[in-house]
């Protein structure tokens, strides 16, 4: 999927001299942060509305990929690779939708026209959690396991936006795309992984001796 995204981006930029911008994302303890959404907004040229497609698969009661970044207007399909049904929904303001119980590829694709974070859940499987970040720029990507991403963009000034599911705030900064440019972003403190929160209850022993 990611490869496809990149591919589209590359196609879009063939006509321009491209510069690779290396972005490094770390947390407050300088650990490389994967799955950080990195997007570059050109200050001058209006972004081109993409008509791309993306897939958010569901496999083993997990959204795959966990985090998906798409340009506004992208149509995302939600195939169900499990042999059970899922009920995918999102109450995020950027895109509210609901795909009622379905098997396989029966669900209609969803178009994400508005930029923002869309949190995906399954009404049947509470543990399922997925994120679709909708960005209004063709220049975007996810950091790899080393917390790195290299974006090839036409030279110029950009607004760099970095987000992460476990970081509330959006980190913004201005960068200039030129050869060998390298930006390091510290996203600060991470929030606990929602899926890692222990299901413990104190209710049983409230009044015990």
């Amino acid at each position, binding site marked *: 999927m990611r490869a496809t995204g990149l591919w589209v981006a590359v196609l879009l930029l063939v006509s321009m001299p491209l510069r690779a911008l290396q972005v490094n994302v770390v947390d407050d303890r300088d650990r490389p942060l994967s799955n950080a959404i990195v997007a570059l907004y050109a200050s001058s040229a209006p972004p081109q509305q993409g008509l791309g497609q993306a897939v958010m698969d569901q496999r083993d009661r997990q959204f795959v990929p966990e985090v998906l970044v798409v340009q506004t207007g992208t149509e995302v399909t939600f195939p169900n690779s499990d042999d059970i049904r899922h009920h995918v*929904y999102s109450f995020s303001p950027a895109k509210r939708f609901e795909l009622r119980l379905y098997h396989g590829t029966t669900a209609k694709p969803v178009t994400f026209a508005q930029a923002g974070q869309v949190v995906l859940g399954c009404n049947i499987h509470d543990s399922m959690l997925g994120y679709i970040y909708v960005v209004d720029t063709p220049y975007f990507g996810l950091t790899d396991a080393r917390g790195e991403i290299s974006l090839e963009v036409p030279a110029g000034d950009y607004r760099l936006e970095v987000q992460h599911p476990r970081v509330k705030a959006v980190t913004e900064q201005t960068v200039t795309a030129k050869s060998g440019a390298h930006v390091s972003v510290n996203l600060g403190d991470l929030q606990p992984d929602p899926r890692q929160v222990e299901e413990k209850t104190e209710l049983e022993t409230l009044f015990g001796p």
Partner: protein
Amino acid sequence: MRLSYRAKLVLILLGLVVVLQVSSYIATRTVIRDAVMEDAYRQLEKGSELFTQLMQTRVQQLAQSVGVLTDDFGFKDAVASADEATIRSALVNHAARIQADLAIVLDNQNQLVASSVEAPPERFAALERLAPVSGSPRYLPVVIDGKLYQFVLSPIMAPLQIGTAGIGFEVDQSLSTHLQGLTDLEVSFIAALDNQPFYLSGTLGQQAQALLLAEPAAMQAQPRRIWRSGDMLSSAVNIAREPQPITAVLQVPLSRALKPFAVLDTQLLTLAFSFVLGAVVIALLLARSVTRPVQQLVNVARHIAGGDYSSPIKVRGSDEFSQLAHTFNRMQSAIAERETAIRYHAEHDSLTGLVNRSQVVPQLERAMGECRAAGRVLAVIIADICKFTQINDTLSSETGDRVLRAVGEQLVAQVGDTGAVLRLGSDEFLLLVTVDSEPDAADFARSLQECLDRPLNLERSDIKVELNIGFALYPAQGESSERLLRRANLALNHARHSNEFICAYRQGWDEDHLRRLQLFADFKQALLSDEICLFFQPKVDPLSRENLGAEALIRWIHPEFGFVNPEEFIAVIESAGQIHLLTRWVLRTAVHQVSQLQALGTDLTMSVNLSALDLLEDDFPEYIQRLLRESQLPASSFCLEITESAIMQEAERSLKNLERLHAMGLLISIDDYGTGYSSLSQMKSLPVSELKIDKSFVLELETNQEDRQIVRSTIELGHTLGLKVTAEGVETAGARDWLINHGCDILQGYFYSKPLPAHDFSRWVQDYLHEEAQ
């Protein structure tokens, strides 16, 4: 305090029962009370457990409900879209399902999004202070608007947290009441608001609330800790520590716990009281069964003490008391017999079998009563046997006894049933005889005398005895037994001393007798009070005025009787054996007089009369010796005049004393010479220095030839024996001259002077001696 045996018995029994009852009551009470207390503890523990479970159940109910709510997709949708109306309706719906009091939704900043009840948002400000709830449901007791809620809050995941939903039960009165209904405990919820304990809700009344809030333990819940304060047994369960401490306090009012016990207590008490009451009754009955026979015996003993031996005790059964009663009965009859015997002996003379002296007055008075009633005369006769001492002495006392017995028998036979015979003692008998007139009494007395004319036929010999009989008559000669007896005795005395044998009481005897008694009674006082004094009559030597003497004579001027004849009262005093008192007084007074005269330069010889009894006193000479020594007068200044008869009584002892007195130098004179029967030979052997011719020979000297012869021969006799002769009763010059001519040595009489009081006598002496000087 003295208690009767019965009271003691009752008290002891009662005490035992009371102690038993009290101790068993206390023991039972303690046991029950402990049990009740323990029960209360257990109730409290169980109640606490139940309470905890109940609270837990409620929490679980809430948790379940809130879980269902937050899992609901539609609800999530509504929350996500902030559709307040929908949210509220969902909340109301869910709350209604479990009858929860409050359901809320908070956003991620704990700001109220919606609640099941319409209220201003500021009411829920307390919720904003809560720590954000994430991950799992959390139980939170929260005080909202002064009401305590049990809340379970749960995050709303979609799939990330989009808010928090909470459902809560109000811990209100109904809960407390419900809990109370289940556990039977008082339930209170207390919160510490700003460190001030605050009573949220509960079943306690105002007063109990205040008491509870005042207790520090109420806010310091410790598991299984139970404390007691006042009436309450309490334990606390912690409900919450944050954001404010909240405690549930469970209490058992002891009064309530002990309420069933109070009924039991009353029953126990009633039981104890009835036991005590029963014990009283039994003790009383028991005491009665013991004390009644005793009381009976006491009563009988009292009768016996009072001399009644005829109240036998009814004997029932054969216990100790009956035995005692038997013994009492036997004792009664024994005492009665013995008393009869004793009384008989006391009232009767063992020798003659006659009633004895002790019965004189009762019998006499009874006889007097009978005679008074019958209008007859009672002769009170006392008889004795003439010369009975001689019979006793010459024959034997056994014979005497036989005589007494025989006389008694004769008297009884003579009296018959007209009267009674009593033995007064010795040989005296009292006869009480009823007659019709005074002459009859004399006749009867004579018949007594006559019945003894025949000799008494005793065992071996016949003895003839004679009676002296004196009698007095009732009522003519006395109204009282004492007087009658005295008068009969006087008559008997008279019979004895005269030779009449039978003598009736005569008027005046008793008065004389009483006068003598009076004189005797007054005598000592009279000596001290100068009623008795000495008069002095001179004894003159016609040849020599210097040879002067005087005779001391006693005078008694009695305040009642006036002048009392010295012979009369001296006889009384002699008979009472008190003569020595008088003699010694006379001697002392005479010595005093002589001393006084001596002080005036006059020596004289003082004659003092002695009684026969004085001479029988062994220490009499010593007494005179002492007087003389004290007064420093020569013994020759005193002459002791003694009658012939006096010397002749117990002549030996008298003579011995006389000789001693003579040896001391005292003059001794034979007084009233010629009236006795003294023989010349006796006279000769007496240490006498003077003969005093009785005045009966001198008074009629001038006219009586015989007297003159007697006096003349007496003077001659005296001179022959070497004695001086004194004549008393010289009243005329003729007599004086005759006596002087016939050689009488000393003269005494009215011719010279009558007896004079001391002062007059002194003057007389002065005058007499003065005459001589002229």
